[in-house]
């Protein structure tokens, strides 16, 4: 799970270290820290946004430890799935039971289909769909794609996957 936390720290040396210590102690992988020095709150505190990855589920322990250390937690946002892939399917998508195709991925518990757009140009013509799959990690996303490939092959659907990410992939 990916957690995004908005904290308020007192404007005193050592406060940031104090706030990050419980995170690393409990095994969180800190991905980003935004320290808004220039945006004091009316009470004189400094807003800090921390984003971290947590695989052991001990979010409550982190919150308790932070509060014990005098850190004010303004908000906590959780995102369970953080790997995403878009694939295109071509074939008789609806008539080959799209619900079942999606179920086979959703039932894994570690991956789910979060978006589906279907274009059906005419009766008896193959449909095309774009499918967005989220998963809790890279390995799980790979497993979800394996399931999709197997199901698609059984249902004679063509799966078009993205090329592997590399240094030359430019974000939109």
């Amino acid at each position, binding site marked *: 799970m990916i957690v995004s936390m908005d904290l308020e720290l007192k404007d005193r040396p050592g406060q940031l270290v104090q706030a990050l210590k419980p995170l690393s102690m409990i095994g969180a992988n800190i991905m980003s820290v935004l320290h808004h020095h220039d945006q004091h709150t009316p009470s004189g505190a400094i807003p800090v946004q921390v984003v971290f990855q947590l695989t052991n589920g001990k979010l409550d322990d982190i919150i308790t430890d932070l509060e014990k250390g005098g850190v004010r937690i303004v908000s906590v946002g959780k995102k369970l799935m953080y790997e995403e892939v*878009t*694939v*295109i399917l*071509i*074939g008789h998508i609806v008539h080959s039971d799209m619900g079942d195709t999606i179920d086979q991925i959703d039932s894994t518990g570690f991956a789910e289909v979060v978006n589906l*757009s279907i*274009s059906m*140009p005419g009766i008896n013509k*193959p*449909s*095309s*769909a*774009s499918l967005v799959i989220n998963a809790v990690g890279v390995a799980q996303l790979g497993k979800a794609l394996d399931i999709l490939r197997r199901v698609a092959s059984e249902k004679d659907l*063509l799966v*078009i*996957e*993205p*090329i*592997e990410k*590399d*240094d*030359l*992939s*430019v974000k*939109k």
Partner: protein
Amino acid sequence: MKTTRLSIIGFGAVGQGVANALLQKHDYLESAGLNLKVVAISDSRGACIDLDGVDLEAALERKKESGSVATSGVMSFEVIRDVDHELVVEVTPTNIDDGEPGLTYMLEAFRHGRHVVTSNKGPLALKYNQLCDESKRNAVHFRYEATVGGAMPILNLAHDALAGNRIKGIEGILNGTCNYILSRMTDEGLSYEHVLGEAQELGYAETDPTYDVEGIDAACKLVILANSIFGMDVNYDDVEVTGITRITPEALTLAGDEGMVIKLIGEVKDGENGKIMVSPKLVPEQHPLAVGGTLNVALLKTDMAGPVCVTGKGAGSMETASAILSDIIAICKNSH
């Protein structure tokens, strides 16, 4: 100046391109200290042989007028066997079923101690290691840059310019016909059948387009890359191939909504999860692999240089001749 005597076996678009290139580049080659003398040209009907050097302009003219370059009934095989020369330019049509007649021509050339430069994919996709072994046994050069990506340097790039690097993987668009069809479908929202017809009218696609659109041509090129660059021992049957015939305009639109295009991508990977695969893939619109028209492109993933990308014309008479000429020059320079 050392003279290298050549034969041109096969006088279709590529063979004629080589003749034209030699005519156009005569002064350049001479100033580079290379004297290339064509002593024989053959096509399916016969050959013209002149040990003092075939008149290339007359040969091209004769081909144009009569449909054949032949002035005698001597056949290609006999030219390779009997005419005294150093280098065979083997540019007969590709045959993916048994590699013939090119395979026999190449092996015969090696047996007589002649170097071979070719653009013919069939024999390499089927019998790569046999050909390489035979050329080594006879201590002659065997070069085939023109078999992959036409004018685009990829084999020589990997072997020479990137020497010292480990190539971890290659992916790219290796068939201009498929790229043309997918690019037109994307730009105009037209159906596959419509654009295929258009490509056939323009001469970008054959009357029987199977070889291109089913990914067979791209797969043959991948086999050559896998064997030559990755030292594998694979042939066409080892490639997992999916073509472009099922791609719909709607799929291209859906991909476009995500900032992607669909391209027929060939990929070969080194190492344990080594795989050789041709399939339609989603490519981000801004990615260097997302080239349009009939262009080819290849992305080499290397350990030191990082990703290196080349793009260029994958087919065409003069473009292919460019790759062949660079191989001929390399052999002349290395065999002195």
